[in-house]
């Protein structure tokens, strides 16, 4: 690395803070993708949460904690509805969550068109909450929250019954249901988890910007999917790690930080590099899996 200052704790702390909302979203997305689905609505849920919380605090005069609870409850219901629709209507998750994305984005725009600022002492308290690290770096509350979500997510995916259900569902939904995996409950829980985590990411985003804007976080769903794929999770489902998504998010963040540090590269190089990284990791995955499946399965998966 040609910039020694990149490794300072100050940059590291900011790095975690800047990517906190993307990281939290990516955890939920990992579960959805491992189960063989996809959730396009997360970016819109982040935007909706930001606006809802901002309006509840600034216009209605509610305490932030109450507003947080309402937002999380709405997100849980929203995710449950999507999960139910995916299971009972037997439509691809792609289309259901696309409808969910339109609904959440539209709902946010119906609440307000403007950027609503949040001025509340509890907000400034949460933003100032940080652990000082040696070297002048600060580990902020939202940065710690992201790391915590990743840890909980990893335990949930790899050490609990629910996690095993998710993997089973992604491997083969029919076999999973025949083996007694509660398909409905698991599907609903997966999409609820994704929406709730997206909502949490929305709260983090509103802490980060101290405002709510209906068009915030447009396209975050693609960044999250990209991070999950770069992290080694298969989009066909049934295989992946929560920690891999952490690496993916950090890699995406690193590309951005590097381009900012370099200074001469224009911002559009970010997109090209991310696209190239995605391509590289997909091809790599493809080669690794082609090599490993050739060993124990007869050809014919074309």
């Amino acid at each position, binding site marked *: 690395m040609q910039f020694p200052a990149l490794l300072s704790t100050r940059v590291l702390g900011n790095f975690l803070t800047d990517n906190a909302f993307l990281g939290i979203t990516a955890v939920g997305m990992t579960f959805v993708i491992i189960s063989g689905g*996809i959730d396009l609505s997360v970016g819109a849920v982040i935007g909706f949460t930001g606006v809802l919380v901002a309006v509840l605090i600034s216009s209605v005069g509610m305490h932030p904690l109450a507003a947080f609870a309402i937002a999380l409850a709405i997100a849980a219901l929203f995710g449950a509805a999507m999960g139910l*629709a995916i299971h*009972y*209507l*037997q*439509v*691809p998750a*792609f*289309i*259901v969550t*696309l*409808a*969910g*994305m*339109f*609904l959440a*984005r*539209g709902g946010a*725009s*119906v609440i307000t*068109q403007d950027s609503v600022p949040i001025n509340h002492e509890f907000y400034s308290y949460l933003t100032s909450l940080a652990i000082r690290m040696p070297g002048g770096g600060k580990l902020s509350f939202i940065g710690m929250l992201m790391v915590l979500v990743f840890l909980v997510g990893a335990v949930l995916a790899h050490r609990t*019954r629910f996690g*095993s*259900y998710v*993997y*089973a569902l992604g*491997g*083969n939904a029919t*076999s*999973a*249901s*025949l*083996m*007694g*995996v509660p398909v409905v409950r698991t599907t609903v829980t997966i999409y609820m988890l994704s929406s709730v985590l997206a909502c949490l990411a929305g709260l983090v985003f509103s802490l980060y910007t101290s405002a709510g804007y209906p068009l915030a976080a447009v396209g975050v769903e*693609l960044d999250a999917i*990209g991070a999950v*794929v770069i992290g080694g999770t298969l*989009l*066909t489902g*049934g295989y992946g790690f929560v920690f891999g998504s952490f690496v993916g998010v950090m890699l995406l963040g690193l590309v951005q930080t590097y381009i900012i540090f370099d200074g001469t590269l*224009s*911002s*559009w*190089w*970010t*997109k*090209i590099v*991310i*696209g*190239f990284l*995605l*391509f590289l990791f*997909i*091809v790599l995955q*493809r080669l690794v899996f082609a090599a490993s499946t050739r060993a*124990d399965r007869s050809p*014919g*998966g*074309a």
Partner: protein
Amino acid sequence: MSRFPLNRIINTQTVALAGVLLLNWILFPGFFKIEWQDGRLFGSLIDVLNRGAPVAILAGGMTGVIATKGVDLSVGAVMAVAGAVAATMVDAGHSTAAAVAGALAAGLLCGIWNGVLVALLDIQPIIATLVLMVAGRGIAQLITEGSIVTFSDPALIYIGTGSFLGLPMPVVIAFLLMLLATLAVRRTAIGLFIEAVGVNRSAATLAGIRSRLLLIVVYSLCGLCAAIAGIIVAAYIHGADANNAGLWLELDAILAAVIGGTSLLGGRFSIPMAVVGALIIQAMNTGILVSGYPPEFNLVVKAGIITLILMIQSPFATMVLAWFGRGEKRSLRCTAACARSWQQSPSSSSPMRRPSCSFRRCFPRVSWAIS
């Protein structure tokens, strides 16, 4: 006229389009008024056709891709690339024909790239096209060097705003493309091949269809359609905006195809109905605008419409309908009973030992949770 295929014209999609248009007429009485001014037609209905044309063109290409059980997320970005190429070439002094050809070639190249990823490397279509969706906009910005490139070439602008026989040029282009594509897929065997690959690619390959070549062709045609739509959009605003040209139009195109009855699981498609789907979307957009409702409602209404269509098309609705038919009822109940018996004693009954169930082999880590 007795052999006129009336039942092929009247179906869910056209009834829905008529319904949306009628609703618009109720909300805005002047909706169906069409005037002749300066040698061309004017009116809300023409506006729906004109603004719906880019999405209709995209939806045509997208339908072909979806019919092969794929999806192309990159069409919006390809539009931006094509627009950027056309605008910069015209500004650099090339002729209009060269600029259009360059833009079309760029779109074709993007499509071939997607096709190669999907067909040769066997990458899932969503992911394969996601690469170009992310990188494409960056490439478009690279071409325009980050700024919005404007141009004043009259021939290029004519593609976006001119008129032919009184109809706006985009409508004419979209209609011709639709006619061409429909004839190609319904009067030759190509449509059948596409459906065969969409239903079961391995079986189609074994039956002698060159599925790899077919997939590459389908994706490159989708890229070409996206390039045409990109040129139209750039010509319409007299400039190429790498950031916003075709933004989220891929979702509209997929939606149009799905509304048009194309199955996302592949194997069933209709290009004219996808175009009707694009017009339904645009009629809703225009209706909300002309009736004076705030445009924010647009997305919510869209979400409602998608949900409604999904419910009508879903197997669940078919099952509810079948519930009234005696024959299906028995078989349904039987399947449910079998599934239940398997659920109750998963480890003792047959599915574990069936050769088709490689569950335990693939997922040794899960077996402890069930046994």
